[in-house]
């Protein structure tokens, strides 16, 4: 019990209250019951003793010289039992520890220490040795609508598992580490263990669900990136760097998307690293018509076409248009830009052009 609470209790009882630690054997010797519980009372020589916490054979008690009626004793016991229902580590403790870890991660990322291991001084270190799925959440709600640590932590624990750790990083940015058993739970009954591609699918679904949950509860916009399972004690700095980069690339190249997957932004990462001059020259040389992509219909058609792996039927379905309408649009692009996206080489070029165009357009 903290000092303020103790003082408040002293004022209520109009008598000093002293916290003490006794053993269960001593408690029993002085006339207490054999298996003591929180809220149990005992009349000792020094005054009334009441148990506030049971930690194995060690009992934390409060001792007061105040004279209490049996009803007051029972009420005090009831309140302590109720308080004790909370986890041993209160959420404020957890938040403080998580913030410390977050600060260390942030410092390590800034210093470029990608291989840094979580140091012993971090209280949460012992929770970071098992395989965990990392999510990076970037909330963009208005300040007054953004969830606080406790709300978010509770929601995420309910969603994924109790073995989930929420670590605040920068402002509006949270790292979520969840046990990788969640992947096993996603297997349909009787299935074999998930393959690599299936794991990625499940991770994407988990991230989609998380996005739906956060926006559905608090509204506003939020971005989520998810990575493959890691052992956080060794890799947490690196994964934060990777997931941050994934969100950055996703937002830069795919405006409108909120769930970003590191394994889907390889080309974007590559293009992002090319110097501006080289990119501009490439665009100039490749584009037959500089205004080709200013038409939003062409952009949405190409986006859908590439996202459907250049499958005409599936793209038409996705765009709610007739297959012939799509073919007409693709022919129009071929006619105007001289690039036929139904052929592999041209499709690669148009995909790169489209990605570069989106970046230049945003500037």
């Amino acid at each position: 019990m903290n000092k303020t609470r103790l003082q408040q209790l002293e004022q209520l009882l109009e008598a000093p209250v002293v916290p003490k630690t006794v053993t269960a054997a001593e408690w029993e010797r002085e006339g207490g019951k054999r298996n003591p519980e929180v809220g149990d009372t005992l009349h000792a020589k020094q005054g009334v003793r009441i148990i506030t916490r049971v930690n194995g054979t060690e009992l934390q008690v409060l001792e007061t010289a105040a004279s209490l009626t049996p009803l007051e004793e029972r009420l005090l016991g009831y309140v302590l039992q109720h308080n004790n229902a909370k986890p041993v580590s209160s959420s404020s403790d957890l938040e403080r520890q998580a913030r410390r870890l977050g600060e260390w991660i942030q410092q390590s990322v800034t210093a470029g220490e990608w291989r840094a291991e979580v140091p012993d001084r971090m209280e949460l270190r012992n929770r970071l040795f098992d395989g965990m799925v990392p999510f990076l959440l970037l909330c963009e709600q208005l300040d007054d609508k953004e969830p606080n640590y406790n709300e978010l932590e509770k929601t995420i624990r309910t969603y994924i598992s109790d073995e989930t750790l929420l670590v605040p990083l920068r402002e509006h940015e949270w790292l979520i580490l969840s046990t990788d058993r969640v992947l096993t739970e996603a297997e349909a009954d009787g299935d074999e263990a998930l393959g690599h591609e299936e794991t990625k699918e499940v991770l994407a679904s988990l991230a989609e669900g998380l996005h739906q949950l956060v926006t559905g509860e608090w509204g506003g916009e939020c971005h989520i990136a998810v990575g493959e399972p890691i052992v956080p004690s060794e890799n947490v700095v690196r994964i934060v760097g990777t997931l941050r980069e994934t969100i950055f690339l996703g937002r830069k190249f795919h405006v409108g998307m909120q769930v970003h997957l590191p394994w889907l932004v390889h080309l974007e990462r590559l293009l992002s690293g090319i110097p501006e001059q080289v990119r501009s020259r490439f665009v100039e040389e490749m584009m037959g018509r500089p205004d080709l992509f200013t038409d939003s219909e062409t952009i949405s058609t190409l986006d859908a076409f590439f996202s459907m792996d250049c499958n005409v039927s599936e793209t038409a379905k996705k765009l709610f248009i007739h297959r012939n309408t799509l073919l007409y649009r693709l022919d129009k692009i071929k006619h105007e830009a001289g690039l036929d996206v139904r052929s592999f080489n041209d499709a690669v070029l148009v995909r790169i052009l489209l990605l570069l165009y989106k970046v230049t357009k945003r500037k």
Partner: protein
Amino acid sequence: MAGVRLEHVFKKYAGSDKASVTDFNLDIQDKEFLVLVGPSGCGKSTTLRMIAGLEEISEGKLYIGDRVVNDVAPKDRDIAMVFQSYALYPHMNVYQNMAFGLKLRKFRKDEIDRRVREAARTLEIEHLLDRKPKALSGGQRQRVALGRAIVREPQVFLMDEPLSNLDAKLRTQMRANISKLMKRLETTCIYVTHDQTEAMTMGDRIVVMKDGYIQQAATPDVLYNHPTNLFVAGFIGAPAMNFITGQLVEEGGSVRFRATGFNLEIPEGKAKSLRAKGYIGKEIILGIRPEDLHDEPVFIEGSPNSIVNASIEVSENLGHEALLYLTGLGKDNIIARVDGRSALREGQNVKLAVDMNKIHVFDKDTEDNVLEHE
């Protein structure tokens, strides 16, 4: 249960000069099934997302029941949403997926169980409760997503293209299921779709949107028979209404519509209105629904002043009806919907009569339906 009211609602995104939704005013009644329909980018999903609380409202007021909810978080609006991309939680079975929202809100276990089992019974997915999403078909997943919303027993359901991921057959089936379900639950429902068939078959009332503006809000019947403008007339109905640009002329005491292949006498009631509005001698756009072009001899004999002759370029026989794509009338193809048993074939010349009582006349500049505007 509650109604929803939007008063002068605008949505403007930072960095954009144009509003995505402009001056949206609508009073949605308690227990009403309202459909927002329109082409991509018309603002229908943005409007729904504002009602859901997923998007900020730039201007205006949103009421759910009597309460202004502009600044209320989605979780506190007492709404439930079903989206096109129904992200079922992959690590939870169907029961847990449906129970999740209630668990988060700390409902009692027996209450959660009652609601989940009741919703599962309604959606006929009781036998799937132990399955993981991975083991479900598309239609089953969609029903679970619906179930997740139903168990919340919200004041308002919000659905954004919930059937888009399903194949045509399943869509038709689910369309009927959702309509039935909403009638039984007696809850207000706001449903977004780009599909006018879905809108016409499901909605008590339909709001047609374009470029962020409401074009018309009316019952399916009114929307179909009395479209307020060219856009609504063309958007509602499949095949779409035929539009022919031509001139209105006064001839021998009657008003006639003239265009390539057309010389039609306008019925006196409509002619009177067109005269009064000063359309004689002007170019207008005439709207004729495909089913208002008749090939039955009785109709042709009875309508000597509204006959057109054309040749059939393509004939699509769908069994119960045939669609004739006609040339020689106006600039574009004209489509006629005739009886499937009709013997008309491609390449044939055909004589058809226009049901002049059902024509629509649109102003060429404003595109308003001049016979519907006083």
